[in-house]
Every structure is written in structure tokens, then in C-alpha cells.
């Protein structure tokens, strides 16, 4: 009991700063109460409507009353935004109707009255949109995040190829993350090997060089790549100056996939090198000579004796780099351009600009699930207890 009290501050901190925000955000991906809060009566009536033709007069009456109330209470923008995301143009219709309603004479029925303000009220799809937006629990964001849509007949299918936004981006994010992980491994393995097998003085120096980038701001490191890689940058300048490239054929190495790969690999490399180094340092230096003395060629000795012993390090480094890469934001956003953009920048866009938090949360959840699944596969294949982070 006393020991539990010791972890209590940590528990509270983790709950408040990690579990609660995460749970809130994730709940936003499926739970959206705004519309049903603003138009409770309307939703109640629409719930009993079969969806064919127009809803009964009661729905028009409820809508008219609640629109006026929402305008008074300044609650309209919250709800109209959510409905607008289901069907474009609805924000205007709702705002217009709410403002005109007070000045319009009652035309016998609420249906006629609303129709007099905007013809959209006589369109069944308007009411369908309101009903859909009003459902507090919805998979709409997930459908959108997966580029799925509800067809006219109610079935769910993929959007047409040319209007898919998120799935290509997710595939790209996955592939870029795998590619960056592989590059980090290819570059990091020999470095870690060299550091682990150098005399202490040199290994300290090399380790320091690996760690130095951590002392520099991520932003600085990324902008440095812009300076190096841009069309009028250092590398292009050098190639042109040396006559290797003609001046009009400067390489486009930034604001595209190349830029994303180069900068991300550079930034994430230490996360591969450090776990590898820590594992390699624990391998006694006599193992390779021992294998060779037993008759194995150096290559075979490496493959059969050294490499298998570094697997826990490869696993830890790859998992670390991959997970960091899949949610990477600043670097790809700065150097990726259009073609090197990753899913994280879409999430940021929906959080900061379009304010469609539901969609942002759905995209994040899908990312989280993907990482979790990969992690589980990994732990089954490699065995998580064998992984060593340092």
C-alpha cells in the first residue's frame, strides 16, 4: 500500500497528461453530440422518419423552433459546421433560415414557411444529412478516413479512385516509414558496429558525433537540409560548379519524396544506432575470432555468429524508428512538399485549420491501430522480451 502511494504522482500525471487527452481525442472520432444537442426535438422526430420523401410536418415545426432558439443562444455555428461536413452548403442554408425566420410570416404550415426561405428544405437529402449529422455515435469519420462512402442504396464502398485522399497517403506513410527504417538500418548498422568495436577513446568520440544532432533543434536540422538540397543550394551549386550538371538541369532534391527520405533518415538515425550499439557492445570481441578459428569464413562468421546476436538491437532500433517515422510531422511537412507529404500533415490540417476534429481523431486512431498491430506481429515474431533498448 505504501509502495502504491509512491507511484501515485506518476499515475496521476500519466492519467491527466496522457490517458485522458488520448481517450478524449479518440472518442471524438466516433462520438459527436453537437447536432443532437442543438436540435434535440428535430432529431427525435427524424428518428421515426423512414427516410423516404420528406419528413412529416412535425420535423419542420421542430426545426423552425430550434433554429430560432439556437440563434438566440449562439449555438448554431457548432451544429451547422457538423452538418455542413456531411453535406456542403448546409451551413449557409441553416444560417440564412435562422436569420430570416423571425422576419418571415407564418405560411400556414412550417413546411411552406421554411420552403419559402430556402428551396433546399424541400430536398430529401437535406433532411438525410441532418439526420446523419445528428447521430451522436457515427462511423462517418472512419468511412471518410478510409476513403469509403455510403452509396445511394445504403451500401458502403470505396470512393472513385481520383477522389481518394487518405488511403493513398496512409500507404505512402507506411512505405516511407518502412523505407526510412531500412535506410537507417543499412546506414546505422556499420556505424554502430564500428563504434562498438573501436578502442574506448575513439568510440567515445564517435558516440558523441552520433549524439550531437540531439543538441540541435529539430527545426534547425531540417532547415539545414533545405539549405543543402534546394535547387540553388549547396549540393546543386557544387555539382553545377564542377561541371557535372548543366545549370538548367539542377536536381529537385527537396519538397518531394527525396527530401522526406533524406531528412527523416538523418533525424531518426541515432534512434537506430544507439540500441544497436548497446547490444553490440555486449558481444564479446572474441566471438568473431572464435568463429573464424573454427573454420568459418569472416562473412559466414558474421552471418552465423555476430548478426544473430545483434537481432535484439535490430528489432529495438527498427521498431523505434518505424514508430517515430509513422507519426512524423515537422520534417515531412517542411521538406516533403506535395509528393512527400505524410498522413500526419493531414491530421494537423484537420486539427488546426479545418477544425474537423472527428476526422483528425479517426485518422489518428487508424494510425494507432496500425502501429499496435505491427507491434503485436513483431513481438510474436521476434519476441519483445529479447528486445533491448539500451
Amino acid at each position, binding site marked *: 500500500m505504501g509502495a502504491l502511494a509512491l507511484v501515485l504522482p506518476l499515475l496521476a500525471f500519466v492519467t491527466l497528461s496522457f490517458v485522458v487527452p488520448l481517450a478524449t481525442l479518440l472518442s471524438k472520432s466516433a462520438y459527436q453530440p453537437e447536432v443532437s444537442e442543438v436540435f434535440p426535438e428535430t432529431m427525435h422526430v427524424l428518428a421515426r422518419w423512414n427516410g423516404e420523401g420528406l419528413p412529416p410536418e412535425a420535423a419542420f415545426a421542430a426545426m423552425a423552433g430550434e433554429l430560432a432558439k439556437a440563434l438566440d443562444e449562439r449555438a448554431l455555428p457548432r451544429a451547422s459546421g457538423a452538418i455542413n461536413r456531411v453535406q456542403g452548403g448546409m451551413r449557409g442554408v441553416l444560417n440564412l433560415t435562422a436569420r430570416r425566420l423571425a422576419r418571415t410570416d407564418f405560411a400556414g404550415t412550417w413546411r411552406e414557411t421554411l420552403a419559402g426561405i430556402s428551396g433546399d428544405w424541400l430536398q430529401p437529402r437535406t433532411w438525410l444529412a441532418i439526420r446523419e449529422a445528428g447521430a451522436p455515435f457515427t462511423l462517418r469519420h472512419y468511412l471518410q478516413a478510409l476513403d469509403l462512402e455510403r452509396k445511394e442504396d445504403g451500401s458502403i464502398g470505396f470512393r472513385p479512385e481520383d477522389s481518394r485522399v487518405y488511403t493513398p497517403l496512409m500507404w505512402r506513410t507506411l512505405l516511407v516509414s518502412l523505407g526510412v527504417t531500412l535506410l537507417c538500418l543499412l546506414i546505422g548498422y556499420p556505424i554502430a558496429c564500428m563504434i562498438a568495436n573501436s578502442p574506448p577513446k575513439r568510440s567515445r568520440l564517435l558516440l558523441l558525433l552520433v549524439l550531437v544532432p540531439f543538441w540541435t533543434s529539430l527545426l534547425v536540422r531540417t532547415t539545414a537540409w533545405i539549405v543543402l538540397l534546394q535547387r540553388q543550394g549547396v549540393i546543386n551549386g557544387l555539382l553545377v560548379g564542377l561541371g557535372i550538371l548543366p545549370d538548367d538541369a539542377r536536381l529537385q532534391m527537396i519538397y518531394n519524396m527525396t527530401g522526406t527520405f533524406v531528412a527523416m533518415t538523418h533525424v531518426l538515425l541515432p534512434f537506430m544506432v544507439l540500441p544497436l550499439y548497446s547490444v553490440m557492445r555486449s558481444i*564479446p570481441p*572474441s*566471438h568473431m*575470432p*572464435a*568463429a*573464424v*578459428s*573454427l*573454420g*568459418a*569464413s*569472416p562473412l*559466414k*562468421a558474421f552471418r*552465423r*555468429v555476430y548478426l*544473430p*546476436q545483434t537481432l535484439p538491437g535490430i528489432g529495438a532500433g527498427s521498431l523505434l524508428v518505424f514508430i517515430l517515422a509513422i507519426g512524423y510531422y515537422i520534417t515531412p511537412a517542411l521538406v516533403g512538399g506535395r509528393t512527400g507529404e505524410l498522413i500526419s500533415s493531414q491530421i494537423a490540417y484537420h486539427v488546426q485549420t479545418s477544425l474537423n476534429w472527428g476526422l483528425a481523431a479517426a485518422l489518428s486512431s487508424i494510425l494507432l491501430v496500425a502501429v499496435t498491430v505491427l507491434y503485436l506481429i513483431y513481438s510474436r515474431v521476434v519476441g519483445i522480451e529479447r528486445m533491448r533498448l539500451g
Partner: protein
Amino acid sequence: MSQPAPHVEYLAVHKRYADSDWVVRDLDLELNRGEFLTLLGPSGSGKTTCLMMLAGFEPATTGDIRIDGVSVAGLPPDKRGLGVVFQNYALFPHMSVGANLAFPLEVRGLSAGQRRERVARALELVRLEDFEDRRPNQLSGGQQQRVAIARALVFEPELVLMDEPLGALDRRLREQLQYEIRRIQRQLGVTVLYVTHDQTEAMAMSDRVAVFRAGRIEQVATPEVLYEEPQTPFVASFIGENNLLKGRIASVGRGVCEVEVAGQRLQAAHISDLPPGSETLVAIRPERVNIAPLPMRYSNEFEALVEDISFLGDHLRVRLEVCGNSDFIAKIPNIVGHGGILPGDQARIGWGALDCRALEAASY
């Protein structure tokens, strides 16, 4: 009958690393087939480097190393076919004991059946039949060492190199394994080149011992000869215990010389060609020194001051001041008793002329 060619020859081998001093200097050494030869010396004396040059992990800077009369200079280590036992065992932790042993057979392309048979035989040799499926980290230090030895022997090399294989074990286990290694070596008839800094280990196991000092061999001989007839003051003090008295050769007779030590004269075996007048160190084993009241009629008899007496069970260890030398040790076997000598007493001590050797002081 002609002498068979030595199994291994070091011919005028020198070794130095990039920017260091010579690690091995002018090494000439021969190993005969089936011989157990130990390289003995303090750490940093170049003995491990000698081993690594033979194994092929270090090239000789100059000179040549031959196996069966053929130079191995251009031969990579994996083609030399030597068994090597490393100090920390170097067992592969991700493989079972059986897989560790099968590894050298596998890279040689032996069939699974042959591998199984050889592995079983090797495990039987080191008495670890039931441990084939264990991981190395599930074994004790002594068991790991026996696996390492079995692995170095399983592909039936004719020459096995061992680099301080028992260094990490405690004393009792070490003694036990010394006998075991010796037994296996005799049983298989392999040639062994063994490196250690422990002189009792070297004495207990070896046919011959090469004593190293600062990259040079001081003396190569059987353990008995090393002990009884050291050629240099270093060997005299490194192998067992020796009192070294500094003096000057006064006169030389037949096999015996007279040495002046702090104004007194003593007789010693003259084993070098040191002329009269040259500096010398006279080496006397502590157990060859006698203390009165035992009956004495020695060519060397001195008055000595008893400084200290320790009782060590099987013998008494008496520290004396003799001829101005204050750390002179005498060992008296417990069958005699010390005859009532106490620290501070004057005692008469003595030893035979041929029990002490006049060694060349310059080389110390």
C-alpha cells in the same frame, strides 16, 4: 635416425603494432608433435601475441611461422585448422551446446549424421554428455570452459592453442581442469600451445615451459630444469621463490666460483661464462637454506639476524638479514622444528655451494 620436423616453428619473429614498441622480439621457438608447451610470463610480456600470430589473427612484423615446415604467413585464420580456446570461452550464446560444437563441423560440410556422432564423442571426452541441449548461459564457468575445449577439439585439429583458458575460474576448479586438459591432451596426442601467467599452472601441465619477459624468451625448458637450473635472475625469481644476493665474482674454479657479497665470500655454481670481477646475482632457494642447531658443514655458512618467523603449517618461513640483505627467506620443514629461534636472535645459517647459482646480473 633423423629428428622429425617440429610441428610448429617460430623463426626470428618480431611483432610490433602501429605506433608502439616491440611486443615480441626475436622469437625462436619450436614445438614438437604431441608436446604440451606453455608460454609463461607476466601480463604484457607478448605471450598472447605469439599465440594470436600462430592462430593467424595478427601478422608477424618480420620473421616466419611454420607449421609442419610450411610457412603459414599467407594463410587466413579460418584455413589454418587450429583449435583455439579463448580466455572468456567465446561460446555463442544464441546456440545450444550441441550447436556450438556442431558449428565447426557444419562449416566444414560434414553430414548431419557425422556431426551428431562427433559432437557426442567430444561431449563424452569432456564428460558433459547430458548437456547437449543446454544454452551456454545455463552452465557453470567450469562447464562452459569444458564446452569451449570440446569445441576446439571436435573437428580433430592436430594443434590446439589455449589463451589463459582457466583465468576466470577459482583455484580448485582450475586445478581440476588442469588435470582434465592434460588427460585429454595425452589421450588425443594433440600438440598444445598454452598461455598462462600462473607459474604453478605452467609447472603442473607442461612438457616444456617458455618463460617470457618483455617480448623475449628468457628460457625454454622442462619445469624441473626451470626450477633447478634457471639461466637468468628473472626466471629464478619468477619460477618459485628465490633469494637473490647481489655480489661480484672474485675467482672462478671448476664449475664453482667464489662470490663476494657485502664483504663476505660464498661459493656458488658457476653456470655462465662470467669472468672474475663481473657483477652477479646469486640465487638460493629458501628450502635449501638450513638454520642451526641442525648439524651443518656447508661451504657457505653465515651469521644472520632473525627478523620474523611465520608458521605456515607444513613449513616455517623465516625472514633473515644476511650479508646486508634484509629480505632473505629460509623455509624449514615442519618435521624439524625451529629449535627455539625467536625474532631478534642471531642464528647460524648455511647452504651448499651447488645449491646456489651465480647468474648474470646485467640481464635483470
